[in-house]
């Protein structure tokens, strides 16, 4: 009940729930929201959660986010769930999953990687999901959890 007052229901759109506490604003940055989208975005941080103690929630009104868009946030919030809402009802619910390739979100941690000086988007192959380890497809250097989180 208390939660309903803090974060009101949306009619249509996407609710990203169970975001790791403190990561909501980074999640918005990854999703490039709300800039340019025109969507109304509500952010709730440190919301009490039975499972995790506290969590963040992001609600995007009037826009259904595609899987490939939201999967990118799994790098920061691996436990997040995506709820698609139509007419106040959740019609689809799924967990985020880390994609095979990560593109356009991170820079390579290797300062001597070619991606820092050429007009190319850094791309990473996911080598391991738990713990998260990404390999730059150009310089082949591995990026670990700390290096990934440090970029947000």
């Amino acid at each position: 009940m208390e939660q309903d007052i803090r974060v009101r229901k949306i009619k249509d759109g996407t609710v990203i729930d169970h975001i790791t506490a403190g990561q909501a604003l980074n999640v918005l940055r990854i999703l490039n929201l709300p800039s340019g989208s025109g969507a109304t975005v509500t952010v709730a941080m440190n919301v009490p959660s039975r499972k995790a103690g506290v969590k963040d929630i992001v609600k995007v009104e009037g826009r259904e986010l595609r899987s490939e868009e939201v999967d990118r946030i799994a790098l920061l919030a691996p436990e997040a769930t995506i709820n698609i809402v139509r007419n106040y009802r959740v019609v689809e619910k799924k967990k985020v999953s880390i994609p095979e390739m990560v593109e356009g979100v991170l820079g390579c941690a290797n300062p001597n990687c070619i991606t820092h000086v050429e007009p190319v988007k850094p791309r990473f192959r996911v080598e391991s999901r738990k713990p998260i380890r990404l390999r730059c497809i150009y310089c082949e250097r591995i990026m670990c959890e700390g290096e990934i989180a440090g970029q947000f």
Partner: protein
Amino acid sequence: MREMSREEIEHILNTAERAEFRGDMLQGRVMCTLFFEPSTRTRLSFEAAMKRLGGEVVGFSKPGAASLSKGENLTDTIRTVSCYSDVIVLRHPREGAARLAAEVSDVPVINAGDGSNQHPTQALTDLYTIRKEHGTLRVRVAMVGDLKYARTVRSLGHGLAKFGARIMLSSPPGLEMSPELMEELEGMGARVEVCSLEEAVERAEVLYVTRIQKERFPDPEEYRKVQGAYRITPELLEGAPQNLVVLHPLPRVDEISPEVDHTPRARYFHQVRNSIPVRMAVLALLLGVV
């Protein structure tokens, strides 16, 4: 080398060994060498290999002479050069340069060294030499020296791991192989252990000595700390097993004393000679003539 299969490596080595090359195989084909970093051996060896197959060579060996000095990026340089040539050989100080080049090029790109990442044709030459010397790649190889920055170590490690070799590592403090690479080599099939130089000499069948990569040190003071930290001498090799051979990707500075050159263990100049059939095989296979 990470992505090459054991079968692909064997195919290249077998092609080099069969040496069924003809002097007109690549007649009318052009190889472009783009060396943004200095090189003697690799560039000349590629050029010699191409010419022995009847091909032509264009290119540069000084980045100052390239349009890069006018501000052109690598991507545009590669796109342009791929219009002139049938194959590109690229050396670049940045890691990942060859991969990027291969993405934007219309013709095959051979990585002749990208920063401290990879040097695959050197590794193929090393594997070819080891197989020639020992008849197998399932050998005990001690890698000695700069295991942090040397790209030849990384590439050879990947190649050896695929054949189940035992890899011994001996390096001065601060130049150790990264734990990620050690773990990766083990995951690929190698048995990896860290040892002293003396242990390496006592038990290895191949002593793979590397130069300390002075040019890759971010701090010159760090280089001075490890400069001259190891040296292979005839005395050090006295108690070594009969079949131990000494390899080095060259150039050397002071890590192998010249007296070792006259011992039957010294195989580094054989290695240089072996680079020709290996690079001929790579060129011939890439251009589809064998």
